[in-house]
């Protein structure tokens, strides 16, 4: 016991020293992340309206914004639009990214160059991507519409057609972000042990069997993580909607964060917007936690 005492004291001192070193970083982190979040939650308990100074710090009906949310049909619609957008963009980005990664998983010069080309959409500023697609989707200046018209196909304006507007956003978002899943998958593929492939070949596996029974199980974790990142990012979808459709026609492409943005910055209703954002934040955390739990990420063996 006595031999352990100096050791324990040293460990405690070491822990204290580490905490002391960490403290400034933690304080800064708390300031830049927790303080705004706290302000958000506090604001959500007030009817804060920038044009009415009397609403600052009015906590007389703290749950009023949350009560109003329950009766807000446009908000409910935005949640449904968000769910559709997230589902399809994540699914398509995973499928296309995975498929292309398999095709490009080779070390020829041509394929390496092609990989770089495929990465371009991801590194473009979101607003540039939005403008590119605005041109593509605007019939009188669109090369796509000209080409289709010359082939005899009359295509409606995708961003003003209620049946197509959300699909148009999904296509543009998928184009921008499939390289992310492709990149992650490619990186994982290049880490794949050669023994696994050799063993499958010895067993006479076809290409399809190899993909389904060897590659896909090996990539499961990476694909789930990529999907999680894309899911969280899809909830933040904004520039494409802002530039292409303004949430319309009607409310067909109005997702929850866009609706919240409008409440805050078009109508100055910061309190109500904060309430929506608080719920959105909680939902994002919950979804992320559920996914992380389901894939066992961070589980200690």
């Amino acid at each position, binding site marked *: 016991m006595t031999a352990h005492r100096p050791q324990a004291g040293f460990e405690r001192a070491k822990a204290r020293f580490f905490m002391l070193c960490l403290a400034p970083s933690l304080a800064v982190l708390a300031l830049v992340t927790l303080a705004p979040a706290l302000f958000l939650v506090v604001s959500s308990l007030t009817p804060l309206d920038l*044009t*009415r100074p009397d609403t600052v710090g009015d906590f007389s009906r703290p749950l009023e914004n949350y009560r*109003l949310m329950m009766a*807000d049909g446009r908000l409910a619609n935005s949640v449904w639009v968000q769910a559709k957008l997230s589902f399809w963009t994540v699914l398509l980005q995973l499928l296309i990214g995975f498929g292309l990664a398999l095709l490009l998983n080779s070390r020829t010069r041509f394929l390496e160059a092609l990989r770089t080309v495929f990465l371009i959409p991801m590194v473009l500023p979101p607003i540039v991507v939005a403008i590119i697609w605005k041109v593509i989707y605007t019939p009188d200046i669109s090369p796509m519409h000209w080409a289709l018209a010359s082939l005899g196909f009359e295509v409606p304006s995708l961003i003003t*057609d209620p049946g197509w507007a959300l699909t148009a956003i999904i296509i543009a978002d998928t184009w921008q972000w499939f390289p992310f899943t492709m990149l992650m998958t490619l990186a994982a593929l290049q880490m794949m042990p050669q023994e696994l492939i050799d063993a499958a070949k010895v067993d006479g596996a076809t290409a399809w069997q190899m993909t389904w029974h060897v590659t896909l199980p090996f990539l499961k974790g990476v694909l789930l993580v990529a999907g999680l990142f894309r899911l969280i990012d899809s909830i933040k979808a904004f520039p494409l909607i802002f530039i292409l*459709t*303004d949430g319309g*026609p*009607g409310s067909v492409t109005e997702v929850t964060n866009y609706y919240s943005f409008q409440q805050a910055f*078009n109508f100055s209703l910061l309190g109500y917007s904060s309430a929506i954002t608080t719920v959105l934040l909680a939902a994002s955390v919950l979804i992320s936690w559920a996914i992380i739990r389901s894939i066992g990420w961070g589980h200690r063996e």
Partner: protein
Amino acid sequence: MTHARFDRRTLLGAAGALAATPALGQAKPFAGQTLNGAAFQSTFFEYLKAFFPEFEEATGARVNFNTQAFPVYNQRTDLELSTRGSALDVVNVTFIYSGRWIGAGWLTNLSEFVNDRNKTDPAWDAADFVSGAQSAMSDARGNVFGFAWEAGAMLMAASRYDLLEKNGRSMPTTFDELLATCDAIHGKENVTAFVADRLHHWNWIPYLMGLGGQVFKDPPGNLTPRLATPEAIRAAQWYGDLLQKFAPPGGLSFSDDQAMRAQMSGRSNIRTQAITWLVPLAKHEESTVKSTVRYALMPAGPAGNFPGSNSHGLGIPVGSRRKELAWEFIKWALSKQMLNRIVETRGYPSVCRRSVITGDAFRSALTLNGQDVASLYLQVLELGGRSGYMKYRTVPVFPQVGDTINRGIERIATRQQPADAAMRQAQQDAVQVLGRAGVQVDAD
């Protein structure tokens, strides 16, 4: 940026404009300062920018003036003003935001500058601005928070009037005639009969009022929305049909500029919009319809004629740290001399100084294809000023109600909902959003 050519006439004009500003009598009084300004895109600022070097030369200050698309500008400036920040020194006071920005105390009281002889020479003549255009720039006590650079008077323009003539039509004067004309000319020579931009809460309201409807019950006192009345539903159906049948593909997403270019290139024919967006059809160097464009008053409905009119002004944010310089800029930009120069050299059609509007240069600039468009402009301004039917647009909560109108019209025009359902939803959304803004509405 295109710089103006400096000749004797230009310099004399500049000297005249600068003479009205006492501070500029001193040598480079604002040397080293940068004036940051912002407004939405308009031909006025395109023209004015060409003269910036003169202001910079006279004051020693540098002008950094940015313009953005109408909704983008409003959004950014609304946010900037709400922070009472100092990023901007001169802003456009947008008509639909004027009540909100002035009411919230986000703009500087310019009456204090005007009434100070050391800051404003009486020859600048603040009273020369048309009162109708200035009404949205003032508070209830008569304090002025902006000076109007544009009065928007809604007219109708047919870019390809020749197509109307070929089909035995003249410029429509009623809603029924407008529909019949569109029906007769749509698709002829690959030209759509009608075009509009996506700002339905501006474009649709004259049709709503013409069919007997209104936006609010009795603005600004009673802001109960009236969007689901039989008149409003009928007007929404009527306008939605007009867009759905006769506008170009994708027209619902058109900005002001896109709609103007559709007309200028001869792809779309009739548009009802503020004069600023219609005169370039006859004047703009890229216009292909200079010889075929014709103008007329907005058609009338059974309840009368209610062409939209509005005004946008230049104001100074309350947080600006260069208010003196900003005021010099406003005086310079909106002086009689500068406005006359812009009218003479560029044919700008929407000035708000009475002395300029009634001058020969303006009348001459607005005689287009032999038509006296200046008199149409004055008729609309007088109509709006006399009856006060534009009051609905300056209430602080109009932006949010306008947004519900936009979405309602889009739902109808894209056949997502029938007119009655879409407008009932718009009414419900408007009541909800007004409730959140603390506005009391009638129970009915």
